[in-house]
């Protein structure tokens, strides 16, 4: 075998989430009344377009989650030896982006470096000029041809993308129409996205579309790789916060008494400790553990990955208090409602009241605040990376990108593209998630939850 699949910790968690997602989708499909609100989500054009955008991010993230190591040509004692470098399927797909690194900064779509360098020509004269890039625009003989070439490549790429988009659109039109999904919005969105992808792909073959960073890595590649880190920080952290916040919040609100006191004290204490300090302490302790046990890890990727997973855990443990407080307040309101008292009058157990009566009625808050937190978490990662307690420096993330770009903001002329790329990608990701969550919340509002028209 020329490669061996690698399962990192975060991969396992992602697959677990994916399985849970598929299982609950299957469960909902079997039950008409649970399916109904989702059907309504499907008729909302905002929801479906944002879902389309989200699914693009998800596909990139998932491809980037399938890790493997390639076999090296040498063998030791007849055994195949695998490269210490862990690659993902996504890396394989965009090999040119990954491999074609320049010397240092270059602007988006540039053919030369960003700074002048002294070079000596054949006759020994020292020239000070912008040197040509190693890969970006090497096919051009003259720098002046660049604009025309970029335009041509962009247009042809967009056109090809548009054709593919049209093919997809015509293939799925009838299928969409049958389901009553918002046809026009989806078609337009598909065409725009496919044209954008086509253009980027065609340009990326010859240029660095979003420029290169300090060590010459392609910024587009970095941005795409950051998607997985962002998604993992957002979702795995949620996996930790959600049970804590939900269970403790509604238990405190409903049971009151000493349970409430204990939970309130815990979260008041926790939220009065500066969270950066707490996280820094925990991450540093963990780093020491990792450093003292190198035998646990066979690759540097698995070490960086463990740090990421731990970061998620720690972020989760420190960030559940806000949601918990919110849910406690809402539960205090709900517990006085008459349907809760009716359930108490039947002697329904507290646990059942919590899960059947209170939990479904606070889910809208959970949904909205989780998606809102998502952007906060991605940003928190950036801040922590800045302090030096974020993800492993070798791991590509929006945080490390922003952190690296930060130093260059004060430079003249300014290096703006790394920051702009991270900003743009995060904006689209978080906005799409927010809009989708909003539409989902609306669809689950029981006032619109009609099974049929009552006369």
């Amino acid at each position: 075998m020329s490669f061996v699949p690698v399962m990192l910790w975060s991969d396992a968690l992602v697959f677990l989430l994916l399985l849970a997602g598929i299982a609950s989708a299957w469960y909902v499909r079997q039950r008409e009344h649970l399916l109904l609100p989702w059907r309504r989500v499907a008729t909302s054009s905002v929801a479906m377009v944002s879902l389309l955008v989200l699914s693009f991010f998800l596909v990139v993230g998932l491809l980037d989650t399938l890790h493997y190591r390639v076999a090296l040509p040498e063998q030791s004692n007849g055994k195949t030896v695998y490269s210490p470098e862990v690659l993902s399927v996504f890396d394989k797909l965009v090999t040119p982006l990954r491999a074609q690194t320049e010397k240092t900064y270059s602007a988006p779509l540039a053919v030369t470096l960003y700074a002048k360098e002294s070079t000596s020509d054949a006759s020994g004269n020292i020239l000070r000029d912008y040197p040509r890039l190693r890969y970006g625009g090497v096919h051009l003989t003259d720098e002046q041809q660049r604009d025309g070439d970029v335009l041509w490549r962009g247009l042809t790429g967009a056109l090809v993308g548009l054709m593919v988009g049209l093919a997809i659109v015509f293939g799925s039109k009838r299928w969409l129409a049958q389901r009553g999904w918002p046809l026009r919005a989806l078609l337009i969105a598909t065409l725009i996205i496919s044209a954008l992808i086509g253009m980027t792909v065609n340009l990326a073959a010859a240029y660095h579309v979003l420029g290169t960073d300090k060590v010459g890595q392609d910024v587009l590649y970095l941005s795409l790789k950051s998607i997985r880190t962002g998604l993992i920080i957002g979702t795995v952290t949620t996996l930790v916060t959600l049970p804590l916040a939900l269970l403790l919040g509604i238990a405190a609100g409903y049971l009151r008494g000493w349970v409430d006191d204990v939970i309130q004290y815990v979260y008041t204490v926790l939220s009065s400790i500066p969270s950066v300090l707490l996280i820094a302490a925990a991450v540093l302790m963990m780093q020491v553990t990792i450093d003292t046990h190198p035998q646990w890890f066979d690759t540097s990727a698995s070490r960086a990955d463990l740090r990421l997973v731990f970061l998620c855990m720690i972020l989760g443990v420190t960030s559940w208090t806000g949601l918990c407080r919110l849910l406690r307040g809402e539960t205090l309101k709900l517990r006085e409602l008459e349907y809760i008292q009716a359930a108490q009058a039947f002697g329904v157990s507290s646990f059942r009241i919590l899960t059947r009566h209170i939990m479904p009625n606070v889910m809208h808050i959970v949904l909205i605040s989780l998606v809102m937190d998502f952007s906060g978490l991605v940003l928190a990662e950036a801040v922590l990376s800045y302090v030096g307690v974020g993800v492993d420096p070798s791991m590509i993330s929006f945080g490390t990108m922003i952190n690296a770009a930060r130093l260059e903001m004060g430079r003249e002329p300014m290096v703006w593209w790394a920051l702009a790329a991270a900003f743009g990608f995060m904006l689209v990701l978080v906005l799409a998630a927010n809009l989708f969550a909003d539409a989902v919340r609306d669809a689950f509002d029981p006032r619109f939850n009609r099974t049929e028209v009552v006369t």
Partner: protein
Amino acid sequence: MSALLEVKNLVTRLRNGARIVDDISFSIRAGETFALLGESGCGKSITALSLLRLLPDGVVRAGGTALLDDIDLFGLREREMRAVRGGNVAMIFQEPALSLNPVMTVGQQIAEVLALHQGMGGAAAQQRSVKLLAQVGISDVTRRVAEYPFQLSGGMKQRVMIAMALAGQPKLLIADEPTTALDVTIQAQVLQLLRDTQAASGMSLLLITHDLGVVAEMAHQVGVMYAGQIVEQASRTQLFAQPLHPYTQKLFAALPHAARRNQPLVAIPGSVPPLGSIKQGCRFTARCDKAWSLCSEKTPDWTVLEDGQGVRCHLYAADAAGRDKGEGIRVDAAPRFAPSPLSRPPSLLQVKDLRVHFPIRKGVLQRVVGQVKAVDGVSLEIPQGRTLALVGESGCGKTTLGKALLQLIPPTAGSVQFAGRELIGLGAGELRTQRATMQMVFQDPYASLNPKMRVAEILEEGMTALNIESNSAARQAHIDTLLEQVGLARSSKWRYPHEFSGGQRQRIAIARALAVSPQLLICDEPTSALDVSVQAQILNLLKSLQQKLGLSYLFITHNLAVVEYIAHEVCVMYLGRIVERGTAEEVLRAPKHPYTQALLSAVPRIDGARGERIRLEGDLP
């Protein structure tokens, strides 16, 4: 006298075209009270808001004119309109607690109106506010003027609202359900205040209400609204002597009354049709028992009879002469409910000296500094298959008592015996087995059903919790019979509660309580959130269930008419104690305790006889 306000062909609709107020015309003369009477959702409040041009988003006025003193209200510019609001026309709302700003003192809020409409400021405004508050009957004015709304009781807040409305010296006061949120005795005070003010200032009053009793006390002219239209308009005496429209007739017949004890109330079947659902024909057709083919084909025209009484019904059109106009309501000759036997059956529930005290805690250590005695030594008995009504005003502890009986609130002391078995001090397990014997129906049908559960799940919950009916098929069958019992279609099983109207929701709540086959139902104001016609449906249902299943009821209410109709025995509660107890006949005909007497005299009567009033001053301590 000329008309102060002349409204012609007012149409207000939603942006999607559904008409909320459909072609309404009426006029109010100076110094007169015009009452708009109707059930919830028939467009009364929207009519008032249209006049003030304060319609909520998504609702637009689509036609008609309104002349106030010959000024076209709809032709004014917004800036001029602001001078009219609060100046010429003032409005008071249903919920006084929500219409006062909680962070401004009462005096400041009145001074604001004075500054706007009278150009008064400083000491003059201060003096005027004090005078206005004194005028609306607030005692200790100099202190009250500097107080915040939370320091005032509900009745006082409504008085302050009235003072604020009077500050602009309006010619027209619009009162939107001004007493609905208040207790009977307070309601009597506020209505008296409105009458006195009107007599003193000569302003006109547009009174919006659903309460026939209030109309009987206050109105000179009455417009009865149904589904966005005025279906009948007459002077008070005419209307109460001879209601013409079948809807008005039924409204009168639906009122519970002692004389109707042994017969079902005339309930209007169904509920008000949704907005814009009826394009042609009379809107009441579906619920009218006098309807014939013409009613659903042609929209009836406005017909004015010789004596000035107007009605929108084909029965009174010139070409429909000779049809049965149904003066007086046909009542089935044979009473449907067998009168209950005179002998007193053995008591099912015995309560002795029950106390529920809530500790007041203060300070860092949460030391108990006092007790709120919500229920303070109550003893009562409920016989098998009978109804005991617990009457009292808000805050007297009647709901707390009901919940204490169910052990939802732990009682402080006393004894509750159900069929000879002591309930207080039972362990959790033993209590669970007792739960099935006693159940509760709550006041607000909108809050008493979990919006995220379907009807079948709601009904099944109690059975599952108390292990009634072993398997799920038996439970489903039981749910079907329950739904049938309370008069709902079986198909409603798989729907969510919000798909039902208020009356239907209350039926679901009753079915939920019945699911575990209890012997005693505690009904906590089960009809106070419902319209009169729907209230009649629910009362009928409760009565017939009592006959069929031999249920006992503890009926908690503040509505004495309902008590007269449904109760066998009555307990009157005041400040946590029972002040009078006896059979319904005894207590309501010959009340002994002064509080009961005051309570009874405060109830507005639709026969229009304004008897000698015993006025209670002040509020509950």
